[in-house]
């Protein structure tokens, strides 16, 4: 199999999979089997691409077609995209398994539409990852928005529709209103949209206008949720939890910060940004978003809302890393895409598992649940520690490199911001775990647990601790695996570093 075939397959597999899923609508087990098979095949294909991308020789590339003269639909592999492709396709497998458990246990309607849209969303995320130029990236970026809209509004209640409207409104509004203008401006000024090492802007756009163009890009990439365009993320919390996991960890927000990183490195070029200081303002916007979102997260009692604001804050780390315009900052920000993906998907899986097992959404109602759901809470702890950035979790590496990047850029204030923010992370994530393990449920053991699960599971006499009442295995196993993934990423942080490093090598 040649590299071009493998690249073509990386798009064909998910899109063909979505059609097969639709055809298998009548038989739920077959449909889910198709989903999981598609996910596994896609991951295998991406791993194959990885082996070819790291081997010597020219990087894999594929030209699909020319839409308008000079504007091509083309794919190419570079380190950052390779990493994002692996995240999206790898986590899709776990998310599919988790979805089966969650959607069935909660008796959700219209599951076929759900799985079809999910496959399209992953396909477009892979398209974003492997896009060879900004034009191709934009096309897949928009398909991603449209295909996730039915997922966000899945419940079809008034609340879900309002959330879906905000989601679509902010994402389409920013992408068409700002990003498209930026892309066309780049095209008119430079005559190319190819991702080029060292950037294409240098010398083509008046220096005074570069920050304006940069602003059009970073705010136009609404999926990166930089304040004030972050409102869609909490609004999208009405979606079923696996969708939230998709939005927050696998595809949507990651596509956003990935695009920001890609634009900074391959459209502007970090050396150019560092030399002109055009991205200095962005450091402060990102730092402000980072702190403000953390503080808002502390005020939220709804677990998913708290995690949503946590995501807004964590995404700002990536933007911050890019805005520092130093090698270490870019590497740290890029690594944070992977580290945060693994940590946050764990947290969302846990939130969904808690909801599936107990139908609780507010943190203040979750007293004592840790004893009932030890695996879920254990995984939550690991995920939380990774998001905070403590060893031995993957998240510690990205924060480490971000701090190095800040030091390289002589931005000592930024180091302070990162430290304060880590403390804020502790303050809004860990009390939830403490509450689960160290407080008792208000009434007798088993209070608030659904009848179906309480029946036949009487407390073990003499032990003084209630029996385990976990969510279905389809939910618990994926979240344990992602929690383990946080630790694995710590151990293999070096491998990730070496994968990404060519991106900033001169």
């Amino acid at each position, binding site marked *: 199999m040649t590299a071009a075939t493998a690249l073509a397959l990386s798009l064909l597999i998910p899109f063909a999979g979505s059609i097969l899923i639709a055809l298998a609508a009548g038989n739920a087990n077959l449909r889910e089997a198709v989903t999981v098979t598609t996910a596994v095949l896609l991951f295998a294909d991406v791993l194959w691409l990885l082996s070819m991308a790291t081997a010597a020789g020219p990087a894999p590339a594929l030209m699909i077609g020319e839409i308008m*003269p000079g504007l091509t639909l083309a794919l190419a592999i570079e380190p950052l995209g390779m990493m994002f492709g692996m995240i999206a396709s790898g986590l899709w497998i776990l998310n599919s398994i988790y979805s089966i458990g969650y959607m069935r246990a909660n008796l959700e309607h219209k599951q076929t539409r759900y799985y079809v849209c999910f496959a399209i969303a992953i396909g477009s995320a892979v398209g974003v990852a492997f896009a060879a130029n900004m034009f191709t990236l934009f096309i897949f970026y928009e398909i991603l928005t449209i295909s996730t809209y039915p997922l966000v509004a899945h419940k079809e209640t008034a609340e879900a529709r309002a959330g879906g409207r905000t989601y679509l409104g902010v994402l389409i509004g920013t992408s*068409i209103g700002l990003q498209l203008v930026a892309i066309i401006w780049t095209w008119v000024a430079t005559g190319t949209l190819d991702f080029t090492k060292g950037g294409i802007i240098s010398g083509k756009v008046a220096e005074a206008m570069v920050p304006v163009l940069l602003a059009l890009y970073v705010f136009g990439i609404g999926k990166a949720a930089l304040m004030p365009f972050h409102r869609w993320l909490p609004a999208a919390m009405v979606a079923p939890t696996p969708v939230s996991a998709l939005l927050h960890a696998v595809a949507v927000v990651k596509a956003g910060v990935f695009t920001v990183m890609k634009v900074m490195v391959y459209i502007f070029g970090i050396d150019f940004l560092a030399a002109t200081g055009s991205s200095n303002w962005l450091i402060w916007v990102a730092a402000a978003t980072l702190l403000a979102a953390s503080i808002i997260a502390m005020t939220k009692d709804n677990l998913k809302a708290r995690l949503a604001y946590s995501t807004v804050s964590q995404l700002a780390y990536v933007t911050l890393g890019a805005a520092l315009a130093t090698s270490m900052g870019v590497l740290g920000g890029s690594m944070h895409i992977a580290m945060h993906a693994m940590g946050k998907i764990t947290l969302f899986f846990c939130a969904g598992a808690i909801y599936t097992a107990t139908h609780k959404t507010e943190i203040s109602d979750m007293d004592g649940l840790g004893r009932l759901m030890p695996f879920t809470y254990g995984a939550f702890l690991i995920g939380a520690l990774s998001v905070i950035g403590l060893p031995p979790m993957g998240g510690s590496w990205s924060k480490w490199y971000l701090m190095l990047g800040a030091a390289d850029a002589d931005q000592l204030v930024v180091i302070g911001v990162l430290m304060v923010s880590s403390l804020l992370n502790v303050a809004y994530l860990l009390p939830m775990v403490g509450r689960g393990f160290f407080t008792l449920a208000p009434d007798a053991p088993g209070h608030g647990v659904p009848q179906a699960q309480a029946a036949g599971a009487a407390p073990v006499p003499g032990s003084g601790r209630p029996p385990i009442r976990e969510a279905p295995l389809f939910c618990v196993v994926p979240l344990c695996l992602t929690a383990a993934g946080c630790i694995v990423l710590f151990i293999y942080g070096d491998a990730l570093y070496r994968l990404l490093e060519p991106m900033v090598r001169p």
Partner: protein
Amino acid sequence: MIAAHLPILQVAVPLVAAPLSVFCRRGATAWTLTFVVSIGAFLISIALLGQVLDQGVLSYQLGDWAAPWGIEYRVDAANAMVLLIISGISTVVLPYARVSIAHEVEAHNQTLFYTCYLLCLTGLLGMVITGDAFNAFVFLEIASLSTYVLVAMGAKRDRRALTAAYTYLVMGTIGATFFVIGVGLLYMMTGTLNMADLAERIPAIGANRTLVVAFAFIVTGLGLKLALFPMHLWLPNAYAFAPSAVTVFLAATATKAAVYLLLRFLFTIFGTSFPTFEPTLTYLLLPLAVIAMFAASTVAIFQVDIKRMLAYSSIAQLGYMVLGMSFATVTGLTATIIHLFNHALMKGALFMALGAVVMRFGDATIDTMRGLGRVMPWTMAAFVAGGLSLIGMPLTVGFISKWLLVTAALESGLWPIAVLVVASSLLAVIYIWRVVEAAYFEPPPEGVTAGEAPPALLIPTWILIGANIYFGIDASLTTRVAGEAARALLKTAS
């Protein structure tokens, strides 16, 4: 032999067929005749476009009378493309019309309907192909008069079609009168009606009060015909109450022909050096286009009748075309001309989908749309696809238009206009999404059972949707032809 006479055949075939169809006793026979003629016209326009791209400008002298005395038909890339749009849409819409007209127009009127349809087709093709200013007026009137009748035929469904047609008649006649007054003044000053001759003599006369008045009359008259804001008032009712097939045909072609004539008069006949050319474009057409984009889109958001909503959307889209024109650059005109084509595809598809809804439920209000996602899945899927194209999503033709228009604005250094273009296209998201939400997230009313539109309506709709996507993915042909057309109008070498 025949190849040399294609320009006249383009007009003569439907013109001769029109009186013949009066003799058909049944609507179905008249339809067959019309359909065959339309296919013929489509093939001729394809051949003409091929010839133009190969050989450059074609000139045909009617009855072998040499140009300034006789009437000349003159085909370059610009009108060849518009001819293709008109005859192509007509050919796609006719299979749709067979079922929809049989349902919406009284049996005894159906033969008459196809006669008027053929006359309308003749008029539109004629006003585009001709190289003679007065001849253009004659065909404009043929097209307009037959259109009034076609709109009035919607009276079986809703009597308000009659007032809509009457309003259109009054407004349309004013527009045509302004136009002919302008042409008369031109003749007075130059002694010729041939467009190529006019283009030579007008610069020779230079700044002259009478010519400026002629310019004003022509721009106003054509502005009325193409529903340039604020002269658009005839359009929403005419589109809303006409029979569905007529709405599709008019929305996709009639205003396009008027846009073409305006392009021809502004750029070929008066030319960029005409004293009032620049001020008109910069201070009249550009602001009006921008206002149209916003005002009409905003009004569209509040419409209850979805046909009216799309009619207002058309006014906004015409704003885009006029905007591209007002830049007076190659990219700007390319954007205008490609949007003529692309907008015909998207609005055609959208009105066809709505027509299927009207045929089943009698109207297409936002209330009727509730739950249709399940009741008429294919029709609504087409509506969503057409809507995405209207919004300008990538991989649809709408995106190509918007890309070129924003490029043109930025190239001219008008970046605030670029921002306004994208901002106004976001209004389209709002009015399309209202319908999508109603169709997919609300339950159908009690007693409505699933039932798809007949294939005769669905297949043409999906042909247009397919074209929306095809020309959105591979726009190299359309951009090339539109680019040629723009250069022909601006008389710059390619």
